[in-house]
């Protein structure tokens, strides 16, 4: 099950194979995120980073049912989405480190991951900014007669910003084939949701724009996959927007510098009991899709793969000076 020679697109299609492949990708995301945290702690990289431990099931389930022609907008907490959609660990880690091997050559950094081959626009470092963009992608797909959709991934905090409300309204009045994926991890930056938002059930905000809207458990990857499959099939069918609120949790603080001291005691432990990787492991064992020995081996393989990716990324040179001047505008204007 080695995936080192695969392209992002190949890696992405693997997720449709079965629960073991989806578990493997979640393991990979966890390993990459832990490795990135370590790289920051060891002083190998400056700036900030926002990790996704605890939310791995969301993007894995989503990517397993999307088509490469669907266009995804995602937040600065985007490593998991990038890896799920297929971007290689070395490309993500390399970008976080600012190396030439990074997925945009080291000029973007942790908050700006992108790969056209898998339909990921540069991840957005401004809260809510990607939401109307996904609506526009959906309108274009519809107008061009394809059944591709737009997907906007964002957090609970983004539902308080104007772009969210304007984007949802526009999607509904223009009947855009777009899926709004709200990862509700209960914290907007350092603030608990109850201090910023009048209610926790954010699917109600989707419903207020008169679109099909519901909440789903974000920790069980297979349940989540079924939910995404159902909504996306419906969108392709009737070309109307839909809203899924994903009930999930981030284990880390908002960013590298946030120790998350604001959590109530015991909250994280309760969520750890429903860790997406553990849940998927138990389900696979119970269904007899793999035995413990195989899953242990898988874990070791993934770990080793990420260790190699970290080392290779560290060994990669930084960008050439000229990279700073590339891709600003077209070389020749018409």
């Amino acid at each position, binding site marked *: 099950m080695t995936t080192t020679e695969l392209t992002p697109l190949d890696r992405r299609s693997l997720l449709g194979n079965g629960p073991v492949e989806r578990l493997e990708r979640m393991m990979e995301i966890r390993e990459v995120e832990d490795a990135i945290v370590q790289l920051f702690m060891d002083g190998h990289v400056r700036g900030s980073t926002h990790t996704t431990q605890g939310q791995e099931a969301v993007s894995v389930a989503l990517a397993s049912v999307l088509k490469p022609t669907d266009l995804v907008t995602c937040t600065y907490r985007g490593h998991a989405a990038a890896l799920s959609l297929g971007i290689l660990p070395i490309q993500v880690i390399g970008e976080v480190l*600012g190396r030439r091997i990074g997925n945009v050559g080291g*000029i973007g950094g942790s908050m700006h991951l992108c790969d056209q081959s898998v339909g990921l626009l540069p991840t957005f470092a401004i809260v809510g900014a990607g939401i109307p963009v996904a609506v526009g992608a959906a309108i274009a797909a519809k107008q061009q007669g394809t059944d591709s959709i737009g997907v906007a991934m964002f957090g609970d*905090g983004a539902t308080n*910003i104007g772009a969210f409300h304007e984007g949802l309204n526009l999607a509904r009045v223009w009947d855009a084939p777009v899926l709004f994926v709200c990862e509700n991890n209960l914290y907007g930056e350092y603030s608990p949701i109850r201090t910023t938002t009048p209610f926790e059930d954010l699917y109600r905000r989707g419903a207020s724009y008169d679109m099909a809207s519901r909440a789903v458990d974000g920790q069980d990857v297979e349940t989540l996959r079924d939910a995404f499959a159902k909504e996306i099939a419906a969108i392709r069918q009737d070309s109307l927007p839909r809203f899924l609120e994903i009930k999930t949790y981030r284990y880390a603080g908002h960013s590298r510098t946030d120790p998350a001291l604001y959590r109530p005691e015991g909250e994280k432990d309760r969520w750890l009991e429903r860790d997406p990787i553990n849940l998927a492991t138990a389900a696979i064992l119970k269904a007899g899709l793999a035995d413990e020995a195989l899953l242990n081996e898988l874990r070791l393989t993934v770990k080793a793969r990420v260790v190699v990716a970290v080392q290779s990324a560290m060994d990669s040179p930084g*960008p050439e*000076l000229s990279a*700073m001047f590339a891709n600003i505008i077209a070389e020749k204007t018409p």
Partner: protein
Amino acid sequence: MRSKGVCRVAGESSGNVRLRMNQAIGLAIADEMRSDNSVVVWGEDVGAAGGVFKVTDGLIEEFGSDRVRDTPISETGFLGAAIGAAVSGLRPVVEIMFIEFLGVALDQLVTEAALFRYLSAGAYPVPLALRASAGGGLGFGAQHSGMLERWLIGTPGLTVAVASGARTGYGLTRAAIRSNDPVVVLEPRRLYAERETFEAGPDAVISLGTAEIVQSGTDATIIGLGGTVPVIQEAAADAEWSAEIIDLLTIAPWDRATVLSSAARTNRVVIVEESPETGGWGAHVASVISAEMFSSLKAPVVRITTPDVPVPFAPELEDRFLPTTKEVTHQIECLLSTGAPDPPWWVREGVTL
């Protein structure tokens, strides 16, 4: 646990303090809050978390959650609300965590707040202080590293200042809070951790629109703003030439008298900007100096800027992108020896677009 704020005593601080820039700005806010109950602080994570750059650390403990409010991620909402509060008796200090986040709320600042006094024939001035972290050097990438003062200058009704260290951060912030008009104070992120000893208290307030000559000299006037001031000081520290260094402090409106009188003494002017060449504040300052002093200048006014590119992430690129001590030194030496500046580094090295 979080560290506590620097000044927990009641009453305004005074006397010598040694503080990091973030602490000094926090102290400025606290001092204004102590002397004026109408001063309130609003922003994302400014309260319980003490601000992501720890500027407002300790304020909620001292002043309570009515005066120090954590907001949702809703810049249009809380900036607009601050305008309403400002015309209704409060003096809001609003934090925009990264200046880029002002983009979603620009209307409230430049089209509403800046115009209220004018459009109400003077009835509704807007005493609003807007603080934001700004600038590069910390590896925050293209959407979290701009100075972006260019978004704001040229907006009649809006005052724009930029801190260059702990002392000026303190003095400008107090002035901004006291102003009866909207004032933006930009805080260069890479200076937050820099320590400086200075005299705190009411006398440390820096008048908006007033530049400071931070070092006298004879060969050239070098004008900086915010993060470029320490760069210029470093370049001039061991130099054989003698520079008069001006910290502009306020860029809208800027202190023409101080700049022009210095230029009249040195007859050579170099401007160092942390912003792309096109449309930078230095272009305007240079045009005024050139027009007023054309016949007495010994050389063209030189602008040292960043190239016209987004802020790159990779450290080796970002370090080149920002104006460096080395580039300042090179341009001054070139100016003094040849009477003209060298092309910027990206042209010299042939790496331009």
